[in-house]
């Protein structure tokens, strides 16, 4: 699927209340195009609750239930069970896609219990986490998704902890489909949504969502920052199905040696939230720590890839 082949119908309407350059709204646009009209949407408290525009208007042209912060997975279980009943009673010809749209706060932190419960029950729905790596809606506080050393309003010297990896936690739940996506690779993202739509059970898609006001970069740079994240290895693109992980798009190209892994410094420097790593003095140690982690992961992946080509035929779910 090429960009120009995306369906023209816009289910994310004009006139939303999003900031300029908002990654969340761009992601909604692509996701809606891939999923189509037969979709029931549940929005979990996040920037999307606000950017859809206040009552009585809406930028979301799908039946939408706005729900409380900690409820994504559970609400989906209710929606999905009810949809099954309506299919059984003939009210629906086919089961619509149940789509939960949550931010990283609602996924990594307060919402993980409900998400985990739904995954364990293998509730039939797609869960999307648009991960802007902070509580952007409340003014950029740290979340479980905030990367190490990043500034937020409550980690003013940079976060001390490394982020947790929810996508891998979802892989560990054994759900049928887990994927990561990036705004800079919309065709890859579109393909993942279109694929998820055809699968039954719990599907998890996480989109890295560089947020201009929260990450402090010009609003015209959203896609550029998203691309740098993948090229520097700070964000990896893959999908996990049937016990196997396949790397995709930009990440795949790096592993296969078709493109170079950019130094993470380039990515860090593109954003204000890492400014304290470069001024007044360069914080060589923390930058090296970040680079070290990324290099270790990619060295392992590249090595595995070469080995696989040459001697082995096993798939490993590599460390990230």
């Amino acid at each position, binding site marked *: 699927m090429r960009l120009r082949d995306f369906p023209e119908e816009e289910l994310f309407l004009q006139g939303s209340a999003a900031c300029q350059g908002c990654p969340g709204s761009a992601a909604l646009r692509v996701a809606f195009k891939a999923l189509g009209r037969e979709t029931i949407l549940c929005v979990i408290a996040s920037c999307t609750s606000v950017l859809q525009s206040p*009552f009585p208007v809406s930028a979301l042209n799908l*039946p939408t*239930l706005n729900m409380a912060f900690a409820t994504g997975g*559970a609400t989906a279980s209710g929606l999905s069970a*009810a949809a099954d*009943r309506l299919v059984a009673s003939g009210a629906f010809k086919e089961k619509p896609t149940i789509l939960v749209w949550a931010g990283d706060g609602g996924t990594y932190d307060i919402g993980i*219990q409900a998400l985990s*419960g739904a995954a364990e029950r293998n509730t039939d729905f797609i869960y999307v986490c648009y991960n802007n790596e902070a509580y952007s809606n409340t003014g950029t506080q740290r979340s479980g998704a905030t990367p190490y050393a990043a500034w937020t309003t409550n980690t003013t010297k940079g976060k001390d902890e490394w982020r947790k990896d929810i996508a891998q936690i979802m892989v560990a739940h054994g759900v049928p489909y887990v994927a990561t996506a990036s705004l800079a690779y919309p065709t890859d993202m579109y393909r993942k949504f279109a694929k998820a739509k055809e699968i039954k059970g719990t599907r998890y898609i996480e989109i890295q969502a560089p947020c201009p006001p929260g990450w402090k970069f010009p609003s015209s740079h959203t896609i550029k920052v998203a691309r740098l994240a993948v090229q520097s290895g700070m964000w990896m693109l893959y999908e996990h199905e049937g016990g196997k992980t396949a790397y995709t798009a930009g990440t795949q190209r790096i592993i296969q040696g078709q493109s170079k892994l950019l130094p993470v410094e380039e990515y860090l420097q593109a954003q204000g939230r890492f400014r304290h790593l470069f001024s007044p003095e360069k914080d060589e140690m923390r930058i090296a720590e970040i680079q070290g982690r990324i290099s270790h992961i990619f060295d392992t992946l590249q090595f595995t890839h070469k080995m696989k080509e040459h001697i082995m035929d096993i798939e490993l779910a590599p460390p990230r």
Partner: protein
Amino acid sequence: MRLVDTGNHVAAWGARLARVEVVSAYPITPQTQVIEEISRFIDEGEMDCEYIPVESEHSAMAAMIGSAAMGVRSFSATSAHGLAYMHELLHWAAGIRLPMVMVNVNRALGPGWNIWCDHQDTLAARDTGWIQLYCASHQEVLDTVIQAFRISEDLKVILPVMVCYDAIFISHSYMQVEVPDQDKVDRFLPPFRSLWKLDLDYPLTHGSVIYPDDYEEVRFSMFKGLDNARKVIERAAEEYRDIVGDFHGGMVETYRTEDADCALVAMGSMASECKMAVEELRDKGYRCGLVRVRSYRPFPIAELRELLSPMRSVMVIDRSVSFGLEGALFSEVKAAIYGHGDATVYNLITGLGGRDVRYDLIAEKTADALEGKLAPESSWPSLRLNEHHLVSKRGLEGYWKKEGVL
């Protein structure tokens, strides 16, 4: 069909007869038997229903909101800590105007750990916009669950309903009930049709950001919905009597109030004790009656005014306490009849955490009140303060000595 069973199993029968299509619930003592029985009904093919075994009460209510928003009849059951845990979503369900029914087995809140009867749990949830109905018998539990759907789904109401009954006294005791025929229930309770739902052809957004320009109006509409519910509750009880045959009262149930000049006011199973207390008091020459509050939200203001204004004294019995004030029912009864008649209103706070409340204690204290031996304020007649309530001999005393408190 006649059945001898627990209050919990009887509640499950109510859900089954109401043709509930989605149940989501988490186990909590003393509610567990409700969902066990429902899951057995489903497994044995006696009930055609989706059962979502969620991972918490917060999720139970979220799943209910999801299924009710799709226009499917939904049911849950909880108790005490479970209700407290779902508190946020109680507001959500009512605020988004979703019909649904949940039973709550009234149980004490910890600490200390206590699974016995107490009304603190539901009274703490009284301002969430839910209708709250309190039952005094097994039969009433079954009948009220069915009536609750009628009330909840009425287009003038469209609010969730909580059916409350007492832990252990009702939940775990066995009583005989008459299970009505399904076709009678079907005649009473038509299939669910909501005023709104998530519809693919008319994609609307529900529950989004709302500014001060509109928020008050939304709250007012909930207020009106609860107000409208008064008539709907009465009508549901009467139509249920006409079609099915049982009647437990509408907003209130009265017992020997016609010629009374003294009334007891209570909720839940304690009202049965109160009936015996009424008999005892009458034997002693006091003209007493009972007003059992069946609907706590909406509160039966008009009924209480009418019934209590001729009274000389009113004795309100609370199975909970509004800390820093008095018994919550006591406050509300006083407020309801303020300026109507000149009854002196007394209050017993008793039976907390499942403590046994005997009819003779109620009768004795009411007689005291009538003889001017009890002040018209809250008293705790079953309190037994001991040494060990004040100081734990071995533990605290030693610690206090060490800290220099003693």
